[in-house]
């Protein structure tokens, strides 16, 4: 029988509800694996990650903090209620890793920043509250690029996270800790956040399903803001069904978030397995070709054939302004960040560096608390919003945003879903892009258009491609599926049908067994 850590959330939920296993056993199996693998000091109620300088090259560093005692206590409580015959939710007792940008009472929330080191939030995010209500057991908080700014998880103030498929490579970012936790079998589910691709790109690079739901459907209450009009929490999972289960228990209107979309959200599970026969699938002309690795293009072409074999009607569509998405994004997101991060002023929470005047204290605190990428984005945003530049930069980018949303609306009059590669490259080596911010930003070229339009978008494994710098290493390639606003259900249905056709089996060979050849991540091999 497969190890508990190899099972999908749906499989775990079935065994838990059949009382073949207890929630405590499931939680302990995951805690044991984290303790043996991830680079934490497994001691006390909350296990802290080792300091960056002490982490080994074989330690993936998915978690910043593991809330071991609280997780065990929650599991015991679930088991007691199940034994007493209480009605429990569909994911009751299934563990989850939570990105450290969402607040959870009783544990630190750092956002990967020295600015918030040691801060313990006094309230739960709505997402955290809903996970608790669904009896999903939070195992801990995961590493991330500082304040979610980055595409490799190398910008964390607490050390980088490694990709379980090849520990010398990045897991993508900014939600790299959540991705590595799930891909490395240290949680069956995780929550990440996606502003310009921060769930979808790491999912692609680690062979997972990662979803950015329709903007406004996942509450941002308790999500530390980066770019408020773009930030959206969403699931990581090993299967499309698991992601749909997790989104189903966490999304929906929240009166505490003024940007939350009113009204009901669609049912993701009822039509999930309906297939794609007759579905019109649009291939986005502008999101392929130049800048995409040949290996990515080969896997993408094969994905199109597979979808056609399943009965989908494939048509090419154009999003004429999509190529302006990335430049617009790198004005809009930093502009919003420069405003949002003004709150870190050394007064109400987090770091303070003392100085004689308030302004000097603000400036010294922010200089000491923020890392280089956060400073860069605050500078770009402050400049883009400043007098004399606002019209040419922020305002013009906001007009492009309208044109991109209009492009999507026109495309969805012709097709049901749109597809593209998720990322132009497979996982790259640690350090490869840290010296050149612009090269790092290009990772987001295929994911930002959907972010700007607010539409739902998902990445799922499409197959494996050789690393361009090492033909002996096969790495996952992600397929992005995009759907109209609030049609996350159609997106999931297309993704589920494609997933079945790839020959994916959720067990037993490690995090993913996508297409052929079947690859087993290094981190998995080492502990067995």
């Amino acid at each position, binding site marked *: 029988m497969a190890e508990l850590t190899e099972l999908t959330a749906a499989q775990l939920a079935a065994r838990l509800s059949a009382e073949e296993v207890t929630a405590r056993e499931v939680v302990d199996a995951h805690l044991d694996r984290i303790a043996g693998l991830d680079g934490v000091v497994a001691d006390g109620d909350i296990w802290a990650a080792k300091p960056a300088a002490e982490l080994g090259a074989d330690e993936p560093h998915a978690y910043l903090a593991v809330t071991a005692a609280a997780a065990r206590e929650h599991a015991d409580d679930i088991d007691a209620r199940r034994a007493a015959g209480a009605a429990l939710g569909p994911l009751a007792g299934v563990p989850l890793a939570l990105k450290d940008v969402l607040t959870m009472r009783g544990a630190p929330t750092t956002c990967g920043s020295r600015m918030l080191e040691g801060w313990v939030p006094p309230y739960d995010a709505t997402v955290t509250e809903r996970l608790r209500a669904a009896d999903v057991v939070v195992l801990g908080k995961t590493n991330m690029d500082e304040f979610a700014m980055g595409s490799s998880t190398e910008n964390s103030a607490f050390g980088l996270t490694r990709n379980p498929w090849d520990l010398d490579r990045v897991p993508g970012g900014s939600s790299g800790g959540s991705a590595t936790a799930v891909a490395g079998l240290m949680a069956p589910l995780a929550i990440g956040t996606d502003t310009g691709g921060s769930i979808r790109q790491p999912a692609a690079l680690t062979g997972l399903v990662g979803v950015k739901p329709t903007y406004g459907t996942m509450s941002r209450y308790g999500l530390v803001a980066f770019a408020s009009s773009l930030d959206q929490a969403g699931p990581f999972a090993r299967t499309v069904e698991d992601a749909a289960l997790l989104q189903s228990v966490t999304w929906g209107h929240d009166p505490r978030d003024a940007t939350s979309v009113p009204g009901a959200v669609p049912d993701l599970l009822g039509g999930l397995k309906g297939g794609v026969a007759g579905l019109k699938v649009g291939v986005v002309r502008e999101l392929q070709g130049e800048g995409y690795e040949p290996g990515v293009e080969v896997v993408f072409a094969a994905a199109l054939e597979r979808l056609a074999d399943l009965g989908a009607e494939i048509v090419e569509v154009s999003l004429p302004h999509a190529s302006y998405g990335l430049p617009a994004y790198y004005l809009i997101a930093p502009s919003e960040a420069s405003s949002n991060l003004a709150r870190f002023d050394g007064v109400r929470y987090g770091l303070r560096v003392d100085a004689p005047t308030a302004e000097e204290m603000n400036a010294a605190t*922010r200089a000491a608390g923020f890392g280089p990428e956060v400073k860069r984005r605050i500078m770009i945003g*402050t400049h883009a919003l400043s007098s004399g530049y606002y019209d040419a930069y922020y305002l013009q980018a906001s007009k492009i945003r309208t044109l991109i949303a209009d492009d999507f609306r026109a495309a969805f009059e012709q097709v049901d879903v749109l597809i593209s590669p998720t990322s132009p490259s497979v996982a790259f080596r640690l350090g490869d892009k840290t010296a050149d911010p612009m090269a790092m930003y290009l990772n987001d070229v295929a994911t930002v258009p959907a972010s700007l339009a*607010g539409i739902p978008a998902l990445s799922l494994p499409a197959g494996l491609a050789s690393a361009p710098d090492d033909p002996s290493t096969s790495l996952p390639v992600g397929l992005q599926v995009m759907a109209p606003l609030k049609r996350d259900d159609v997106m999931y249905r297309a993704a589920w049908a494609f997933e079945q056709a790839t020959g994916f089996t959720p067990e037993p060979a490690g995090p993913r067994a996508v297409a052929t050849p079947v690859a087993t991540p290094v981190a998995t091999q080492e502990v067995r």
Partner: protein
Amino acid sequence: MALSEDEVRHVARLARLALTDDEVAALAPQLSAILGYAEQVGEVAAGEVVPTTHPFALADVTRPDERAPSLSREEVLAGAPAVEQDRFAVPRIVAEEG
């Protein structure tokens, strides 16, 4: 556009970031490269296009004007770097006139 080191210092002041000379020297070419890339947005004739600041045009979202539980003073102040007399403490903001 290329940003000079003086312009970088000006933006840093607006952003309340105390940058070192090394940081200023590193940021000037980096920010110039990023802005140079972002300036592609100017290629699009978008004069009359209505800007989008948000995917859904929600306006004036309010809650009923009713009392509801909130955090206690102790909880709010618990994370503050400096507290005096149950308040956030900050350095002097207004200079004393001699």
